[in-house]
């Protein structure tokens, strides 16, 4: 593998307290040295003046749809979209068809992922077939390479089962990821509940549907002492609950997605199914609270909840259309908007999208420590582009951000010293 010297970039690595303009040498698939005095023979030198060199971005909430719905996305196409978005690693959710609920399924994903453009860390199901009634073989899945457990896409409605899952996952030191939704309250809902859903005649999903389960899972994390990671947080009160739990020492981490700090329920507009997701887009005050949560560390991670759906699932009546949007390719640009608006600084951005995701699921990566694997993302914070349908790398195109003029993107993605995406 050809050594690479990333020259003159602004190297930002919060784990090692680095924020400096310098040269980073990648050699033998590792971060070899900062500002080396000599270079190995055949080193490719890339001038990155004005660009940021950061630890490879990690998206811990991605749906790759393989096996079962390869027409929406595959491990290969999803990984390419990840690379194009600046991600060097993703964690994929188990609600495939069939569900990732056995060692064999985890091994199958890992085997397919060997040739992928980013590292793929499978998350196993909490319950057999994701049906929420009995525990799946979590030990076997952990041994096969599962990095966490969740029934994401659906909540674990049985509180006792959720408690047992946390306790059992504790044997392996991996987190349970909570899809926080009280399904009795959200059932049949298609958007945020409020005056807008009333006017549109759409059944709403109240804030409480999320908050009740956030509270339950915080209580169970306290009870069991086990780490719970709360996925796709969307409401103000959820942020408050997590803030309070963290202050009390509860073992919790939490993520939000770019759409929850970039859009409100107004994006649903004239029944636009590209703005239909679960949890739904919320109100202005929720968006503000999410931003505050990111600022003060209540929310640890920005994850895309990349949920590809083909036009077959989206070109439908609003209440019948599938939930979810793709996000791997827009996540970074939308997060950079937070930096430009002084909501967070560059260091915080890297924490939210690289070091904290690694920490939340106990993954390698997240820093440029010498000797660590050479997973690096280069960001051009000033690059302007229009996000266009025919340029989407993901196999599905379901994004409410199509047509948006965005600023800042990944221009070079390197996984284990190998370039997986380049747009210099």
């Amino acid at each position: 593998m050809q050594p690479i010297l990333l020259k003159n970039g602004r190297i930002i690595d919060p784990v090692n307290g680095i924020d400096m303009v310098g040269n980073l040498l990648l050699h033998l698939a590792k971060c070899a040295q900062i500002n080396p005095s000599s270079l190995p023979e055949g080193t490719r030198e890339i001038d990155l003046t004005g660009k940021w060199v950061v630890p490879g971005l990690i998206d811990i909430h991605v749906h790759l749809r393989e096996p079962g719905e390869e027409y929406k996305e595959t491990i290969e196409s999803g990984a390419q979209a990840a690379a194009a978005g600046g991600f060097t690693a993703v964690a994929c959710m188990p609600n495939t068809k069939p569900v990732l609920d056995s060692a064999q399924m985890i091994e199958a994903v890992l085997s397919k992922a060997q040739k992928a453009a980013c590292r793929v860390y499978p998350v196993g199901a909490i319950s057999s077939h994701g049906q929420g009634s009995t525990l799946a073989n979590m030990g076997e899945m952990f041994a096969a390479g599962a990095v966490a457990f969740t029934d994401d896409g659906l909540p674990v409605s049985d509180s006792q089962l959720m408690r047992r899952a946390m306790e059992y996952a504790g044997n392996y030191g991996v987190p349970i990821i909570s899809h926080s939704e009280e399904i009795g309250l959200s059932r049949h809902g298609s958007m945020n509940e409020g005056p807008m859903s009333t006017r549109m005649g759409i059944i709403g999903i109240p804030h409480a549907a999320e908050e009740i389960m956030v509270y339950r899972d915080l209580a169970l994390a306290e009870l069991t002492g086990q780490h719970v990671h709360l996925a796709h947080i969307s409401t103000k009160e959820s942020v408050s609950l997590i803030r309070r739990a963290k202050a009390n020492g509860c073992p919790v981490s939490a993520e939000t997605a770019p759409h929850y700090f970039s859009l409100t329920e107004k994006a649903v507009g004239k029944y636009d199914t590209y703005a239909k997701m679960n949890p739904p887009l919320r109100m202005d005050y929720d968006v503000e609270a999410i931003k505050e949560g990111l600022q003060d560390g209540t929310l640890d991670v920005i994850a895309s909840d990349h949920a590809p759906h083909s036009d077959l699932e989206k070109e439908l009546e609003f209440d019948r259309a599938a939930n979810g949007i793709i996000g791997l390719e827009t996540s970074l640009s939308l997060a950079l908007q937070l930096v430009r608006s002084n909501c967070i600084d560059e260091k915080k951005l890297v924490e939210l999208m690289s070091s904290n995701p690694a920490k939340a699921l106990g993954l390698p990566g997240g820093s440029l420590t010498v000797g660590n694997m050479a997973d690096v993302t280069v960001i051009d914070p000033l690059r302007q582009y229009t996000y266009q349908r025919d340029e989407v790398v993901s196999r599905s195109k379901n994004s409410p951000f199509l047509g948006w003029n965005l600023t800042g993107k990944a221009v070079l993605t390197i996984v284990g010293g190998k370039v997986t995406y380049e747009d210099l």
Partner: protein
Amino acid sequence: MDAEYRFNHKHILSIDDFSTDDLSFIIQTAESFKEISTRSIKKVPTLRGKTIINLFFEPSTRTRLSFEIAAKRMSADTFNISASTSSATKGETLIDTVRNLEAMRPDAIIIRHSSSGSPHMLTRYISSSVINAGDGTHQHPSQAILDMMTVKEKKGHLKGLKVAIIGDITHSRVAHSNIVGFTKMGADVHVSGPRTMVPIGIEDMGATLHRSVADAVSGADVVMGLRIQKERQQDSLIPSLREYAQVFGINSTLMRLAKPDALIMHPGPINRGVEMTAEVADSAQSVILEQVTNGVAVRMALLYLVLGGE
């Protein structure tokens, strides 16, 4: 109304899309068409050569028939399709269905569908006029206009009237379109019903919400009942139809609180003895059947206006 006024809408999707001038003009046009239905030969050539498809995904006799009669009285050719809402599971999506119909070059598609917003969606895929004959719990614009026409006919105006709407507000597209329409025309709309059937933010649509039905009806010029779907009891929205009738039903005792000449309205079909007693429904103040008559006139006006008939 401005002398320069022109009706400039290709579709009839929601009352929100119309200005007060638009609504007044539609009602005025309907009033002028009403006379046609009283002739011995109830047909004018206005829409001759126009093709109108009635695409009903939900069972409805009266609205479908009302649109069909309206179209035929204007000499349009009408075709009825009663499609099953499960067509999606049979492999054909609503968009496919409508694209196929569009390929036969209709001038208007009148759609009733259980999904809110489905008429809006269709306008993105086809070039015919789309007329919303009821979409989910969103709106039923032609019903609201015929209700406004009926009240205007009886009271001479809408401005300043107190209109009480009682019952299942959440699931009633009639209530939603009437709240928006009557409010726009200067009436005060007051609603009441079981709190399980009053959606969040109804005040944002312009209605005043009352805990007690009596308060809503008190001093009202118009009292409108809404149909209660019997299956709502299974959804735990009401404990029983009997209790509903006792607490929220419109009866003559309640009507004594309204103005003596208050109109009684209902979009039909009525569950007699549940949302309204037979005595009230059949009383001299009831204009329920006139609503039906005006329905034809309003639909004639809407078809005429969107199809640009000469």
